[in-house]
């Protein structure tokens, strides 16, 4: 029976670790389907993490923190949009800059406001048991004994998939990443759609970052995102640019995070550094396995200019 308990704990941790990846990857999926690649997710997540922590600490409300994190990241997402969509600058370079800004700014804010604070703890986000459903063996605790942000992440993916596949808005987003000019001639604003998708993606990256500080670690640590923004980029590809695909891929990567924690705790005779690289190795392996597969939007990364 003991192994069942172990498995249950492992899977529960998997879902918990997957949630921030899901938020960020689903958001990025929208951006990329609209034709804009934002590799600055890491920076946006850091901005989200520090904002959420600071606002939650000051106000005592975690939810206010999450909201502020989303908005703060969205502001930076819009700035990213101004540079890449309006001014047509290279998206990769701008995204790289956004990562540096996020890293520097989050550390700066944290040190400036919390350098002298001694008691930095905040109230953890409590676990909410779903009545009845949480009684299901194994699956119950894994899926229905989590905090509200985890539930939000799990619900977000199918909702995002539905909007993308079953609404006029989703149709427009799918078009604009494939053939922006055709989208423009149909009477839509390429610029507007791309701004919307990028802002939405940034907002979710901010929430993903907030999750790490206020729902997972209950504190902020410099560079606490630790590459998850980049993993989210891989997840988008691994999930074949679909929100549900992103959810599955997030769970897969969440599993590698959970597994390495478990293995560390189990006192296996392997240096913990080797265990820690597990999720990152998994990312590289996944990308190699997927080489040459192209569900990629045609116009991804290509600035749109109104050319006759």
């Amino acid at each position, binding site marked *: 029976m003991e192994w069942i308990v172990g498995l249950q704990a492992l899977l529960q941790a998997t879902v918990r670790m997957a949630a921030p990846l899901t938020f960020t990857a689903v958001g990025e999926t929208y951006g990329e389907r609209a034709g804009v690649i934002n590799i600055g997710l890491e920076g946006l997540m850091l901005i989200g993490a520090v904002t959420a922590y600071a606002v939650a600490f000051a106000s005592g409300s975690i939810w206010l923190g999450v909201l502020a994190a989303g908005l703060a990241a969205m502001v930076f997402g819009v700035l990213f949009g101004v540079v890449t969509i309006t001014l047509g600058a290279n998206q990769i370079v701008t995204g790289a800059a956004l990562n540096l800004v996020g890293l520097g700014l989050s550390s700066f804010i944290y040190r400036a406001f919390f350098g002298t604070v001694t008691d930095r703890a905040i109230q953890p986000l409590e676990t909410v048991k779903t009545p009845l459903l949480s009684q299901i063996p194994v699956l119950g605790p894994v899926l229905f004994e989590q905090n509200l942000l985890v539930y939000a992440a799990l619900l977000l993916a199918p909702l995002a998939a539905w909007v993308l596949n*079953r*609404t*006029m*808005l989703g*149709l*427009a987003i*799918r*078009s604009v990443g*494939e*053939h922006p*000019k*055709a*989208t*423009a*001639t*149909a*009477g*839509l*604003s390429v610029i507007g759609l791309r701004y919307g998708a990028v802002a939405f993606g940034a907002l979710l990256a901010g929430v993903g970052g907030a999750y790490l500080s206020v729902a997972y670690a209950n504190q902020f640590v410099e560079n606490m995102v630790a590459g998850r923004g980049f993993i989210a980029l891989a997840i988008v590809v691994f999930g074949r640019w679909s929100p549900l695909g992103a959810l599955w891929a997030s769970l897969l990567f969440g599993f590698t995070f959970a597994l390495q924690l478990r293995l560390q705790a189990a006192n296996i005779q392997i240096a913990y550094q080797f265990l820690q690289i597990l999720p990152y190795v998994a990312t590289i392996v996944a990308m190699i396995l997927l080489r040459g597969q192209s569900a990629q939007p*045609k116009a991804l990364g290509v600035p749109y200019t*109104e*050319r*006759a």
Partner: protein
Amino acid sequence: MSEQTLRLRLAGISKHFGAVHANNNIALEVAAGEIHCLLGENGAGKSTLMNILYGLVRPDAGEIFLDDKPAAIHSPYQAIELGIGMVHQHFMLVPTLTVAENVILATRPLFSLRRLRETVIRDRRAIERQVGEVAQRYGLKIDPAARVSSLSVGEQQRVEIVKALYRGVNLLILDEPTAVLTPQETADLFQTLRSFAAGGLSIILITHKLHEVMAISDRVTVLRDGRVVGRRITRETDMHELAGLMVGRDVRLTVDKTPARPGAPALVIDRLTVVGGDGRRLLDNLSLQVAAGEILGVAGVDGNGQRELALAITGVIRPASGAIIANGQALVGRTPRQIADAGVRHIPEDRQHMGLILEFPIADNFVLKAFDRAPYTAHGLLQPAAITAYAQTLIERFDVRTPSPALPAANLSGGNQQKVVLGRELDSQPRVLVAAQPTRGLDVGATEYVHKALLAQRDAGAAILLISTELEEVLALSDRIVVIYEGRIVGEVPGDRANAQKIGLMMAGVQTASQAGGEYK
């Protein structure tokens, strides 16, 4: 057509692109229910004018009146709202979406709380049925559930028209709609357009084919170098006058051809079979020969294996079996580069995807197949001066209308893009030339030039395989004609106009080889 009600009036429209004056003080009037042809050389400014009307291009100056009311059109959205529909020269369809999705794109609000239900695509089948109904009502055959990437160009064209009709239009612009259609498809399209016009729809049609202008239009406006150089009522003019107006000189509309003096076979294709991804035989044991100094025309309805034939010869796709021999060398298994070096050159049917790298400067496009050789490369470095100089001479010889060879090929008008491809392929003096739709989208002057150039290549000893869905062109140029149907050669006739009827029947698959007389060996 009634003269009283003007659907559209354009006044003083001007537009510069850098040094190019694409539109210069243009005025145009179209009545309700009129079919109006816009005629002009490649680069005359036709597409630009229509893009302005559709809100895709901002004019420098000028006014637009719709139904006598001034209209401000700054985006396609506004144009659509005002009842303007446009079928673009290069189709504007999203290939990964279905026909129905392409048609309904942007026809309902993206988000609206009051009209929330409209923002949801609840039932795909229902929408497909709806789109199918619109298509059917106008007699346009399309499968609404098909993915656009799987459609032939003729089908895509119909999707574009349905897209416009679905939104409800009273002015429909068609930019060279017949350039990619078969004669039968063109006839169908014209019949559709006539019935639209009879219903009060105004139509602006751009075409380079003068017989089409005569057949379909009520009035014609002719542009040259961005200016209006003439307006005519169609039944008061003739093809000759129109051609003269367009080009500014006398043009011969017929081809003078001396009899061929064929030499030894230069291109031999033996039992060539190409199998598609789905296991279908796209070419089925196809055999043919072209002698040096002759033009072999391949007539056929689009999609019967012409594409695969051209691509197999030029090494882009690998046949399942069979042999291709050019000048005694076996080509199967060689790279496209090696094949080009063996003197087999190719004018691809799709200039935008296979013929050019649109983002590259015109000059670089001219040396795409020779950029790594002297004089364009020396000591491992590109020689921009040599490349530009070479480009200049070709631009002049082939009359490419552009202010500079340094501009991206994407900025050229459609016909001028074609001239760049032609210049590159013909200047290498090929021994075997595979020419697929070589005059697609070219104006009468340029077509005349290309036809002369092809005949000159022939007389210089080249073996030319002319693949064209344009029966007129095949008849005018070919010394012999074979008809391709479902991947097989179903018959051969001498290149003589008298056989047009027979060829037409074979193209439609009505007559088999034996009935047509003379199975091809």
